[in-house]
């Protein structure tokens, strides 16, 4: 009957320097109410097996998602209703991209690649928190789920690191 979790840890990727073992976001910080270019760095496959699919879940409060096409990969998006209505350049948005998938390619375990999308971080997001983008990495053999998000108040950090933290970006106050 212990505490815990929704496992902690992803912050290891942020706090610590290049946590190359994990899928991470290149830009570590971003202000709310502004555009954010999310670059997902994929440093390896699943236990040696090449990556064939990357799925990214778009967290609530992130709109205007425009994924960058990638040669050799098929780009798909899943759209759906947002939990709230967001103001985007004067328009009211109540639905949009919820999930982005790059598939059909093959990224060897020995190689590195990046998967990019442009996003808009609405000012409904809370500054000074970490925004997580859960990622599922599918390989020829096996799956790695980079989906662990620290529990509220757990703070994450070292010591309680998850093996598979979700990539995150630290939110800054609106500029």
């Amino acid at each position, binding site marked *: *009957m212990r505490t*815990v979790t*929704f496992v902690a840890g992803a912050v290891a990727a942020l706090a610590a320097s290049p946590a190359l073992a994990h899928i991470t976001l290149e830009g570590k910080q971003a202000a709310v109410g502004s555009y954010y270019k999310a670059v997902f760095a994929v440093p390896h496959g699943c236990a040696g097996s090449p990556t064939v699919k990357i799925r990214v*879940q778009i967290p609530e409060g992130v709109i205007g998602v425009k994924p960058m096409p990638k040669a050799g990969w098929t780009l798909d998006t899943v759209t759906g209703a947002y939990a709230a209505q967001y103001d985007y350049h004067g328009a009211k948005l109540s639905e949009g991209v919820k999930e982005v998938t790059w598939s059909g390619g093959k990224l060897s375990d020995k190689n590195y690649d990046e998967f990019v999308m442009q996003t808009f971080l609405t000012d409904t997001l809370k500054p000074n928190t970490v925004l997580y983008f*859960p990622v599922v990495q599918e390989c020829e053999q096996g799956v790695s*789920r980079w*989906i662990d998000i620290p529990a509220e108040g757990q703070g994450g950090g070292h010591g309680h690191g*998850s093996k598979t933290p979700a990539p995150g970006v630290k939110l800054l106050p609106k500029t």
Partner: protein
Amino acid sequence: MRLVASLAALLITVCLATTAHAHAVLIGAEPADGSVLAEAPKMVVLRFNEPVAPSAVSLLDAAGRPRDVAARAVDESVMVTVPAGLPRGTQVVSYRVVSQDGHPVAGSLLFSIGEVTGSATPSGDRVVDALIWLARLGLYVGLFAGVGGVFFAAWIGQGPAGGRLITWALKIGLAGAVASLGLQGVDLLNLPLAGILTWAAWASAAGTSLFPALLLAIAAMLIAALAWRSPSFGAAFVRTAIAMICVGLSFAVSGHAASASPQWLTRPALFIHGIGLAFWIGALAPLAALAWQRKDSLLRVLRRFSTLAVPAVALIALSGFVLGIVQVDSVRALIDTRYGNILVWKLVLVSLLLVFAALNRLVFTPMIEREFHRTRPLQRSIAVEFVLMIAILGLVASWRFTPPPRALAMSTDVPLAVHIHTDAAMFQVLIAPGRIGPNDFTLQLMNGDASPFAAKEATLTLSLPERGIQPIERSATLGPDGYWHLSKVPLPFPGRWHMQIDALVSDFKKVTLEDEFEVR
């Protein structure tokens, strides 16, 4: 006379007969009894060896303040919701539950938050316990000396010898039966003694299996009282026979021996044991009275009783032997358990009793046959027998407060259970056998509100940090029972193992719960 000797040998084994005692046993708790936790648990889970219904659960916090808690039963477990804001120190959870056989089982669980403090122990009500014991003893006196006495007067003595003693025994028995019911309610609800005056006490006692048993006992004693005034021998025969059958049934319907399996064996054994005892004990008062008054009929009655006593004692011995084997399980339990200790004392007293019974049969009765006026030794011997009987019944009545080894034995072979509870989910993990070596894990995943938790995958990760054993990761498979299973997971070393369970809710979401468990 040979017979008496062999009978004595048989009777030594008898004593194993039992009547009634508490019987659900606490086999585990989460947090464990005596554990020290870093922070207050959200819930205390008490696991029993059979389904129970909680009747009163209370929590005394480290500051000595009683706190309100909610308890509810889920199968064999009782879930106690712990109030927020417990002070640091040792907390005491007192519980009282009703087991399937109707017996209340009470106990306490201590756990500490942060540190162990000298805590107040819950006040078990000694007075109530003593009164329960006394009422039970009174009930036995009424059933055995009272009903048995009336039966003897009708069938063997064919006269009203010992009538005053018998009627007193019946009165005591009736009072004991009624008091037993009220006190059972007081005990069930953990009320102070004055609670016997409340309706709730009686109503809750009426819901237990003790209620029909007491009704049968009361019926037996009322019919016996009526039989005392029978207009004819024929009527007395019928009435006393019915009363005796009620005595047997009263023992067969309640008590944990009655709920022990196989019931086709234990219930008839209890029935026979009860009737046999009533026959034997019932004879003592009339025989003593006859001897005291030096009635002419004494010798005739003595001979008739002796003839019947041999098969009666044999039946008591046989039924007692059967019940003893069912209840005690092993020879070690005689020494290791309180139940066994009481049984050993009962054996000793019964052996003594048999010595006096043999003396009556082999020495004093022939003495009277030779010189009729020498009845004093027989009287004294019967008086001693009577005292021994009461002492034995007193011991038997104290069994109510101890669980039998049969129930205790079940508790050693139960899997280790770990209950992990967070806002997100509640996982119940059973680890069998819970010892070093290969273990089978069963993961019962539930939401925080105990509704089923739908998972796509479940993974178990084990580690033993103190020995430097790094995480061992295994995938669980969903069984047809709706639980996730892992078989033959090695736990190579004793120690405090760390366990993490990841349950995948959707592709992007999983719930992870962690806990520790002790392997020996």
